């Protein structure tokens, strides 16, 4: 890093260094790696447009989940490792929509409708808890997520669901681990206004939905309440002096994050085509966290641009490495590379100096 700060006589080199510094070295490496993968793709026999479509598709599934990080980071609650809680609200909404017999395009909106009260209640409780433990949010959030996922594992078995498409065939009760969304909200957004040109297919509906939510969050952060939220995150003492109710602002941000998590998992499912229950939400927080960090966010600063860049880079690497690496060196190292890169990014962000709000 020290080399980056040194000045050389050449103004262009200086400019490049300044750019590298502002962009962040790890992000630069990851972006360069992805660019390299895209360049390599045609040489190893993978169609460029197919790869781009895959990346865009995966981007559209995950973007809302990553977006759900933003409100909590803004209010100084740190990275939302408790994302599974929001996901659970979404799963409850999705399964209930199927249970009441909603089908097709409408079932997605029914699912969102059902998920909302759960997200509000769970998010409220979660926010109340996080206000009690300011400063230790991230570790506790992780374990709140884990406990709630394992509690729900029991609940999925015990809750009185009856729809034959969801419960185990022979027992007649207890939800299956994977539920197909065929006939329900599979592709509810993705098939809307989908553009297909040759190998390239763009899920415009999902992207529009994400754009709508992202714009909503952006606009919200520029309202009076939103500005107050940013103030609480960047300097809680200043915020208190300005007469902002810190606890209420944080609570609001947590509820917002939880609700976005709930909607995010529904968007993910409509693209993926399946509801995954039981232990599936367990490890969904880490990819979302590292995506937003790769996008350039820090523990207490995040923008919509970070979300878009980060999700694209992260999902790009997830989709591209298997195809390109496999055909290049005949070894599937993609999983290992993904694990090292994404978690390395989280550690990098955690070690950056930033004021921890107390």
């Amino acid at each position: 890093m020290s080399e980056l700060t040194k000045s050389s006589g050449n103004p262009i080199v200086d400019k490049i260094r300044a750019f590298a510094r502002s962009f962040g070295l790890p992000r630069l490496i990851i972006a360069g790696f992805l660019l390299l993968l895209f360049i390599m793709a045609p040489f190893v026999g993978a169609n460029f447009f197919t790869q781009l479509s895959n990346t865009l598709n995966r981007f559209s599934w995950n973007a809302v989940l990553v977006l759900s990080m933003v409100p909590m980071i803004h209010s100084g609650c740190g990275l939302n490792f408790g994302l599974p809680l929001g996901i659970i609200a979404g799963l409850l909404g999705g399964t209930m929509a199927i249970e009441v017999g909603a089908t097709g395009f409408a079932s997605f909106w029914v699912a969102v409708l059902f998920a909302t009260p759960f997200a509000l209640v769970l998010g409220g409780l979660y926010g109340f808890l996080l206000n009690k433990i300011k400063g230790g949010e991230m570790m506790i959030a992780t374990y709140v997520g884990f406990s709630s996922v394992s509690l729900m594992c029991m609940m999925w078995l015990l809750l009185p669901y009856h729809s034959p498409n969801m419960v185990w065939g022979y027992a007649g009760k207890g939800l299956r681990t994977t539920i197909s969304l065929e006939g329900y909200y599979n592709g509810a957004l993705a098939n809307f206004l989908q553009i297909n040109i040759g190998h390239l297919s763009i899920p415009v509906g999902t992207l529009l939905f994400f754009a709508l939510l992202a714009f909503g969050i952006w606009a919200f952060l520029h309202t009076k309440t939103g500005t107050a939220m940013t103030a609480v995150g960047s300097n809680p003492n200043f915020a208190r002096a300005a007469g902002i109710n810190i606890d209420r602002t944080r609570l609001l941000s947590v509820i917002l994050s939880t609700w976005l998590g709930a909607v995010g998992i529904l968007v993910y499912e409509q693209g993926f085509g399946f509801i995954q229950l039981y232990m599936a939400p367990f490890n969904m927080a880490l990819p979302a966290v590292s995506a937003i960090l790769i996008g350039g966010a820090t523990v207490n600063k995040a923008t919509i641009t970070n979300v878009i860049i980060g999700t694209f880079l992260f999902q790009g690497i997830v989709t591209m490495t298997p195809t390109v690496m496999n055909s290049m060196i005949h070894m599937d190292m993609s999983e290992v590379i993904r694990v090292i890169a994404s978690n390395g990014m989280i550690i990098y962000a955690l070690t950056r100096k930033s004021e921890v709000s107390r």
Partner: protein
Amino acid sequence: MKEKSFASKIWNLFRNNSVPFMFIIICAVCIPISGFSLNYLLAEIITRIARNSFLILSLLIPIMAGMGLNFGMTLGAMAGEIGLILVSDWQIWGIPGMVLAMIISIPISVLLGVICGKIMNLARGREMITGYIMNYFINGIYQLIVLYAMGAIIPIVHSSIILPRGYGIRNTVSLLSMRQSLDNLLAIRFGGIKIPVMTFAVVALLCLFIVWFRKTKLGQDMRAVGQDMEVARAAGIDVERTRIISIVMSTVLAGFGMIIYLQNMGNLSTYTAHSQIGMFCIAALLVGGASVDRASIGNVFLGVTLFHLMFIVAPSAGTVLMGDSMIGEYFRVFVSYAVITFALIMYETKKRRTSSLAGRELALAQKEADK
């Protein structure tokens, strides 16, 4: 009057040890329902105490140094596993194999411990979450080494260990020739219950070491750092170095603990054996009444007994109560996580309360001074 103070004493005892009491109640309810014989339970518990307590004891030193629960102990476990893989490739079995695996694990553990300690020094105040993410990060590197480098760069010859493709280690490495070699050494059979005397002796040795270590200069330094970093620095203690040493010691001990754990199990699941070990050890320690900033050897043994008792009886109690064994399985996972969550919340609220109390006292003192 005396009666009341006795009642409040009991209440205080209960409040300060709510987690162990909760577990005693859970176990007391579940044991009769599960229908296991006392003999069976006793045998199981003794095995599990021998198997796990070394690992859990490795958590004590970072707690002493004020670094919280060392979620990074998994790094040591991975180092121990690498030692075991190499030793079983060289076909060195029994006690010599175990000792050699421990010796191999030491440099790896020290290296990982130093890295982990340095990173934790950068992420001060967030040690636990950093250690937790370090698990995943180093796990990636572990996979890179074990799945790709072993056989390709690091010579592995034995066909029972290496994947047929020529590099990478199989999903399970059999440690059958090493199985319980430490446990069976000098073991006493007592009415059908095997007591692994040698393993207990090793654990006792570690306990003695920890008791002795607390009294050394370094141990005292660690406690000072744990109490207050700034005061310790003012007293001339190299805070950063002390913290790194505490993590290194914990990592090395965790490596040894993992080898003891695996010799009891008798096989090594190469890619999954370490993934849950940190969580279960930490949960067990907390069940024993430890908190993030205070843990004793007593907590370790109480915790391992209660936690594993619950682990044994929960699935069959779940089957009897709900007619589904999965409920019990999920229940015990839920309880492990819930205990950690609860302990973390208790710690954070207590920390906040004491800091606000200290602030109030300071304000009061200033007001007094102004008068």
